[in-house]
């Protein structure tokens, strides 16, 4: 994957996927912001802004399944694919995240 593909945004290589244990998330600093990247148990990847829109909870510390992440502070849930809250908190804008040939995480930032 090279920079500036499909969505036309900027691509960031975040390093090996092994940084994230299956079923968990980790936070990455990207472009002065923070992104929570999740590695689902079926192997797929998702990325959301790292800060919970409710009261700023660390979403990378949340509990996940194949659909949602549950914030550790007050248990609001967010759809991992769409970023929409399923519990009535604010919504998040998801990022696209892929693996390159070397099993590195590549995050597409929108322009």
């Amino acid at each position, binding site marked *: 994957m090279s920079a500036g593909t499909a969505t036309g945004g900027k691509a960031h290589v975040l390093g090996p996927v*092994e*940084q*994230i*244990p*299956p*079923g*968990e998330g*980790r*936070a990455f*600093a990207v472009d*002065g*912001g*923070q992104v*929570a990247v999740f590695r689902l*148990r079926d192997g797929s990847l998702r990325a959301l802004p*790292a*800060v919970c829109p409710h*009261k*700023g*909870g*660390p*979403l*990378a*510390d*949340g*509990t*996940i*399944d*194949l*659909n*949602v*992440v*549950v914030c*550790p*502070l007050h*248990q609001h*849930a967010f759809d991992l694919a769409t970023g929409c809250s399923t519990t*009535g908190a604010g919504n998040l804008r998801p990022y696209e995240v892929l693996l390159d040939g070397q099993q590195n995480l590549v995050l597409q930032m929108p322009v």
Partner: protein
Amino acid sequence: MTSLLETPRTQPSARGPRRRLVVIGNGMAGARAVEEILARGGAAQFTITMFGDEPYGNYNRIMLSHVLSGEESDADIFLNSLSWYRDNGITLHAGVRVDRIDRFTKHVFSSDGRVTPYDTLIIATGSRSHMPPMDGLYTPGGQVKQGVFGFRTIDDTRKMVAYAQHEHHRRAVVIGGGLLGLEAAYGLRSHGIDVDVVHSAGHLMSAQMGPDGGAVLRRSVEALGIGVLTGSRTTAVLGSDRATGVSLRDGTVIPCDMVVVAAGIRPNVDLAVLSGLPVERAIVVDDRLRVQDEDDIYAVGECVQHRGEVYGLVAPLWEQAVVLANQVTGTDTSALYLGSRTATKLKVAGVEVASMGLHGPELDTDEHIVFSEPSRGVFKSIVVRDNKMVGATLLGDSRKVAYLTRAYDHGLPLPEERIGLMFDLGTPDGDTGVADLSDDAQVCNCNGVSKKALVNAVQGGCTTVAGAMEATRAGKGCGSCKLLVRQVVEWAADGDVAEDPATAYYVPAIPLDKAELMAEIRKRGLRSVSAVFHALAPGGEDAKSKMGLASLLKMMLADQYIDERDARFINDRVHANIQRDGTFSVVPQMKGGVTSVQQLRRIADVAEKHNVPLIKLTGGQRIDLLGIRKEDLPQVWADLDMPSGYAYGKSFRTVKTCVGKDFCRYGTGDSTKLGIEIESRFQGIEAPAKLKLAVSGCPRNCAESLVKDVGVVAVEGGRWEIYVGGAAGAHIRKGDLLATVDDPEEVKVLTGRFMQYYRARANWLERTYAFVPRVGIEHLRDVIVNDSEGIAAQLDAAMQESVDSYEDPWEERTDPMTPGQFRTSLPLTVLPQVPVR
């Protein structure tokens, strides 16, 4: 709360002079009538003044039963807070009673000396507890004797709870075996009080059902550990300055510490009588809710008599309030109140009783359908006249209650096969009728919630039944409308209703209760959370179920458990308690709250080195270091070199102790030593919810043992009392005495056995204060102390296995379990955000 709330009386404004509306009585009917008037633009027509004898805003009186039993907190039952009155421009005189009305000059005179003019007056004074004549009810000074209670107001209820929690108060007699009496008895039973109900009629709830139903009900009530005496009248309350017992007509004496009088209610009509208004059994009103022969005085609620009927339930007053508001505001002067059909339900968990209309046939042509199965506590009786249902009594099975209530209220046509009224045989026609209900049809009678309100909640985004119930409070009273609420929500969401995690499931994603789930896990040999999801969860993995499953598997399998870290909550992944700003708190173990110079010095050094923003003594007698960044946790633990205090998990937390006999001049037992031994043995044990323990050296109870999950108290003679199921957080409950033993070793055995039984049986997140009353202390005593089920050895062995698999989680500091276990999740936030003192 007792202050008079004086909002300046708004002057007649440019909108033209407003008439003065005065309401006497700020209970359910008075406040509801005002709400209905406001909903019809009443604020533009009237300046509104309300008088209420009780020094509060308006609350939901029927929920007092749940407050007494501890199922609701008293703060949660308020319907209109003081600010509601302010926001609506209503002058509320709370804590002020009206003594007289001058209906010629149109003024009311109140106890604070105030004289208030009115143009329109509404009387909504409700009822009070009836104190039947008996000796010794009052002190010579005319006060009700200490320990004797009515059950009508929030103050009555608070006083009863306080009295029941007093440790010397162990026995109560409830006079009256109707709805209110049984709810009072059940509520007191929840506080561990031994209760006898004395009822003068031949069977319980004699106003609602016949003798056959009453006999079945009696067995169900007795099964809750409540004593029942029917056909007996209480003739005297014994005791000179406070109640010590009651005596019955046949001479029987029942010793007790408290007496609750629930022998009926009497309308509050003194004011009306004194003011020359027409009163028979209650204040007489016409179909417009106007007091007979008065143009400007209306009355509503339990204080009225309409067409000869006086009601004692809320459903009629909702209907009355609507008519009254239409009349008073002139919105619809043709609106008439023609009386209500009433249905009742007993609000006692585990005893389902609903009744409506007739209890038995009255005409030769009436059909009477009866089903009785006393061994299961089931009894059903239905009376049909002219193909309409005119009465029903249902015990022990509430599945058809919602349908029957509607059939009764609306006179729905009945299925030809009458048995379809009692049992589900396919879909009865009645259940498809939700769409036909009118928008303002009342779905929940207890909280007065209409179909429209529920539909609005669903359209506003509450697409689960539980969510819609929470938003509207529908179904939160007696619970009899839950099925109808569900149907309305499903209909409004057009089938798109998010399924509620059925309350019986241990975790939402797996449709099994705890026992079934454990059996499946054993049968299939499942050892990890992902394997359980794979085998048993129809929808696969579920974030909200993970933590509960992880805890259950660890409990069941001890060191055979395959620990997948993603199934843990963040606290358990990093062994610390996450704080509001994403930092963590670190609480090292300090067994029994005992520390040493070395520990204190080390903690001080660590706090200094890591610049810890807040050092705080916890309620559990330890030292909390707050505001630690996740990435610093391993270093902090290494520097502390103390084991984890488990102040973060759903697990055994701490044993609080008092100094005990070595130092304290009152102490009779070595509470500190025993506390430390208990903590050493059970440290870190997972459980469905947290466990906080305490050991006190004498009944002065400095370690607050009576309000702990397990609390131990040394008593004279070298003996130890073990209490279980206590709490003093959001919920307050005094623990129940499980056993009194001679030997500290025995304390440890029974503590472990109780905790293991709780681990095996309690629902996820069910604290012992809910678990113990749910299963009953007698049952626990049987199983744990007397080993009636023969499982004691098995429980002890399972606990021993968990004890043996203990490892201090803070040892993970040198060898993280997962990549990035302690990696920061909020790299760019300026920390800490908790205040630094």
